[in-house]
């Protein structure tokens, strides 16, 4: 585990709209490397929006607040600039890119990141292949996926595993994983969780898990659990909070807040 100074993503009073619709209504959250946060909450509470806004999706308009990565404001940066600083978003629905092979694409992304961070050395295909193969092995993905187009024709589970492969290769400092557990059967869930845990152990990154279900947290132990509703974090706690939610549902907590 990396014991260097911690990377910090500090979100303060973040408000965001899509069109005229307010979705985020003042999010306050600080995520540091070496921490695992889980955000839970009912549908439509703004969990996915938070990830997308932090990554820079053009569809959303930030109306107030700030998000600083190691003290630097990121909300006015392009998504690629945020990626190069060390942010990563694992998509709920990863997109297909026809004709672009997974291997070629990941090496390009890796080299662009190295270059953006002032590295003069680029990784050759010869150097890259063993790393990629090993990572895919960890996620129990067949090597044939290396030459297949990015996500094209992948099953739901394969897409999610491929997202974790991308994360492990790109070695972000803070990774946001948006419903990485949705659509996974129990075996695939274990594999994905193991991939996240391994990357966490190896790189000491900070993780923000977005999930509906407690079951993911049986395999990945969060340091912090947050409940989100109506664009706000209404309660924070440790992993016990997740168990509580599983037992009582969201209703009770929502009532208390009101």
């Amino acid at each position, binding site marked *: 585990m990396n014991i260097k100074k911690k990377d910090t993503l500090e979100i303060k009073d973040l408000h965001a709209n899509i069109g005229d619709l307010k979705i985020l209504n003042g999010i306050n959250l600080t995520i540091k490397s070496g921490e695992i946060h889980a955000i839970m909450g009912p549908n439509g509470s703004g969990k996915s929006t938070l990830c997308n806004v932090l*990554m*820079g*999706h*053009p*569809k959303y308009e930030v109306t107030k607040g700030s998000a600083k990565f190691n003290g630097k404001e990121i909300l006015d940066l*392009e*998504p*690629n600039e*945020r*990626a*190069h600083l060390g942010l*990563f*978003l694992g*998509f709920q629905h*990863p*997109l297909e*890119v*026809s*004709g*672009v092979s997974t291997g070629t*694409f990941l090496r*390009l*992304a890796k080299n*662009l*990141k190295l270059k*953006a961070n002032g590295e003069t050395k680029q990784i050759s295909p010869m150097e890259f292949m063993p790393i990629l193969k090993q990572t895919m092995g960890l996620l129990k993905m067949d090597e044939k996926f290396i030459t297949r*187009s990015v996500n094209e024709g992948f099953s739901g589970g394969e897409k999610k595993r491929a997202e974790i492969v*991308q994360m492990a290769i*790109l070695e972000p400092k803070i990774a946001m994983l948006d419903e990485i557990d949705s659509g996974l059967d129990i075996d695939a869930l274990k594999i994905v969780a193991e991939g996240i845990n391994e990357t966490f152990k190896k790189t000491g990154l900070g993780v923000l898990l977005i999930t509906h279900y407690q079951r993911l947290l049986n395999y990945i132990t969060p340091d912090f659990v947050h409940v989100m509703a109506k664009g706000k974090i209404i309660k924070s706690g440790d992993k016990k909070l997740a168990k509580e939610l599983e037992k009582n549902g969201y209703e009770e907590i929502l009532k208390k807040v009101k």
Partner: protein
Amino acid sequence: MAVPKSTQKLIKNTLDDYKFGFKTKNTAVFKTPQGGLTREIVEAISSRKKEPKWMLDYRLKALEIFEKKAMPKWGGDLSGINFEKIHYYLQPQDKPKTDWNDVPKDIKDTFEKLGIPEAERKFLAGTGAQFESEMVYHSLQKELTKKGVVFESTDVALQKYPEIFKEYFGKVIPAHDNKFSALNSAVWSGGSFIYVPKGVHIELPLQAYFRINAENMGQFERTLIIADEGSSVHYVEGCTAPTYSTDSLHSAVVEIIVKKGARVQYTTIQNWSTNVYNLVTKRAFAYRDAEMFWLDCNLGSKLTMKYPAIFLMEPGARGEVQSLAFANSNQHQDAGAKIVHNASNTTSKIVAKSISKGAGRSTYRGLLKVSKGAKNIKSHVSCDALLLDGASRSDTYPTMKIEESEVAIAHEATVSKIGEEQLFYLMSRGLTEEEAASSIVNGFAKPIIKQLPMEYALELNRLLELEMTGSVG
């Protein structure tokens, strides 16, 4: 969904991106005057070339047809063509050379800049280079000459091989086929003539490069390829021109005969400047168990109207057309394919891909015909269009004329728009918006590009990148 903000960035004036727009100072040995096409001009061309009487008669008859035929009302907008302004014939040097050292320096420099002699040394079995109306250079590997392969300028072939020339010339595409085949038949000059003897396989490609240099130029090359029984050849053509504020016209006719068991691949990498009207008629006849493959890549020009055709004449013949069109700002690519199944047990495949950017327009126009009596036909047609922004346009006009029932025909068409979500996904991995759009475009074009020999695939990838980035490489 909103139009990606990439749109504003990607819509750029492409004239600046075109790296082949340089002009060469060249004094023509002979050129026909402006003021419209006349009988005198046709006679002057024929006499200058010292042609046999039958060819002059053929030309004059074609001129009559050209004058009678109306301009096509379909396809692209042809109203900008000014036939009065065009130079129909321009002879840049006295006769074609077989040694680059004998080619006049200015012309040689032009082709050096375009990388032609280098390509010849590296990976070609034979090379032709046309400048304005004439092939200025032609060469073929000695072993192939010994095997009886003929690769000559079409003008030279008319003089050297009169019998075989007369037997095949104008048989696949008669002068009256359309207005522009008539025009070409009246004023044709240059182009390649290829004869591959029985059983001879030419491993490396033969290439011809067509360069328009002068302003208001009309280039009307004529290509005739005959692949005799059991032979094979791959012919590649490339073309570029300087950028002028006035329009030039390129109107070629390409006729191909693929005999029993032979295979011909004809690859085009067309990259005219955006002031060129590119109106080309291309057609092949494929006989028993023969295979014809058109691989047609169109990037440049103001308007391209081109539909490579294959007539499957005897059982067992197979035809395939794969095409890629890139329509950028102020461009219309009206391209497609035409396949006619005239015999039983014949198969065909069409794969057409188009990319439109910056209000560019692409059209797929195709004909698939199964003639009466042709049974057990298989055909597969797929057209995919990719739009890079909301201002661009794509249309598909697939026509099918099926006169038989024992046919298996599949047709698929897709239109997709580069989406905000797809760009965002790639950008979240660290690609800039341009890199993301470029990746999507290259991925889309890849199934076509991977069919090209490596050197051309690299070149085409580079050209696509230039179209995408708006920077000069």
